[in-house]
């Protein structure tokens, strides 16, 4: 169960304090893939970062009894001058995974991300699609309960998107996604319930179609 209580978040701008969220509370439903819709700059990514524990609200609490992934997205969490393999190994080390398990995970990641020999090349030579393939595959190796995904860029091209969707389907029941987007069609593809961000408020819809129609 993922619950947000009285969340407020603001940024200092040149023309004074800008509130992204003001005293927002919401309960995320269990066992469903959640699509979060909002216009550019509405606070989607901020929300995702807060859920991922890498940004901090001014006030309010987030409580969750499940494991949440890091936010997957374009920016990525990879060190540019070392290889994809070294990055994955380091991130496994960060999470304290045993050495023999790391070896298995690396094989698994290499297999599903499908970037071939680039796996052993420095990440700076990757295209953005390759980097997002690697990011998605890495998070798949970790068996999180909730996957945080930012935009469609986090799953690469059409081919890989299909594969990603299939993998998410397979893990339904154990892994759910929270998917942030400004595009209705991709949200429709991946999610069953919707949340619309509008003027710093969160509106929950049990039916994704309803969310989309309000959003549009």
């Amino acid at each position, binding site marked *: 169960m993922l619950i947000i209580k009285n969340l407020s978040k603001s940024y200092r701008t040149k023309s004074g304090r800008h509130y992204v969220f003001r005293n927002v509370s919401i309960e995320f439903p269990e066992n469903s893939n959640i699509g979060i819709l909002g216009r550019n700059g509405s606070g989607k990514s901020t929300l995702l*970062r807060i859920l*991922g*524990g*890498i*940004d*901090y609200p001014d006030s309010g609490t987030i409580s969750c009894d499940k494991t949440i992934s*890091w*936010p997957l997205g374009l*920016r*990525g*969490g*990879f*060190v*540019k*001058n*070392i290889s994809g393999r*070294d990055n994955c190994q*380091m*991130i496994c*080390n*960060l*999470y*304290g995974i045993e050495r023999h398990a790391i070896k298995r995970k690396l094989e698994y990641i290499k297999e599903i991300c499908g970037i071939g020999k680039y796996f052993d090349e420095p990440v700076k030579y990757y295209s953005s699609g390759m980097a997002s393939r690697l990011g998605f595959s890495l998070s798949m190796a970790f068996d999180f309960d909730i996957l945080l995904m930012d935009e469609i860029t986090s799953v690469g091209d059409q081919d890989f998107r299909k594969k990603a969707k299939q993998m998410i389907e397979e893990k339904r029941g154990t892994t759910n996604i929270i998917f942030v987007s400004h595009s209705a069609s991709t949200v429709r593809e991946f999610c069953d319930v919707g949340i619309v961000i509008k003027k710093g408020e969160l509106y929950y819809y049990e039916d994704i179609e309803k969310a989309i129609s309000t959003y549009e």
Partner: protein
Amino acid sequence: MSHAWKTQKNVVFALYIRELKARFSHFRLGYIWAIAEPLAMVALLSIIRMALGKKDIAGISYPLFFATGIIPYYFFQTSVTQLLSVIESNMPLMNYRIVKPIDPVIAKIILEFLIYMGTGVLIVGGLVFLGFGFTWNNTLGLILVMACLISFTLGIGLITSVIGAFLHESKKIVPIIIRPFFFISGIFFPATMIPTIYRDKLLWNPLLHVSELTRRCIFEEFTVSHGNIMYLFFCSITSLGLGLCVYRVSRLKLSTSGNIR
């Protein structure tokens, strides 16, 4: 071990491995480069000293004297200046909630300390092998002095990490500020050789105490130490406290500064 400690231990260890690879993978024979700089400095100072024709400094043969001053100082200098860019270079890893900005700082300090300790053992061992002798004095004292040096460096290092993350100019300014300490930290002369009126002022510098006390603990022959372990201890605790305060105040900004830039 509690969960938080275990997590941090894993994170620091992973970052330590990363720093280790980054430091040594650029060049072939990377380990030799780590020794080369202090070794060259010891050789240079020794040659100058030799030309002046004197054999000992305060009862210690001069290469040993220089080596025991240079190595602790280089540990401090290298750590503090390299930490200026530690937040920037580890920014991608702030994407993982278990990584806190202080973790790469700790990893870096541990790595630099181990490198310079290894270098120190090799250089001093090599000199003994070449026939420069001394009588070992006080192991426990040396451990205490090194602990103070680490704590002092970590405190200052935390401050430079924060400054480096927010102020780009600091990457030029801080090394300039630190450089003069090479000449006033007792690396190539003991405090006893400084005229009394200046000595009292220079002894405010904790790094001078580090040099004096390191030699006092290693060499039984070095009997003229002006180092005061209580003063060094006080400085290291103050530095660490101050560093942790600065970190604590700015830690949220540090880990999210990548979002804003």
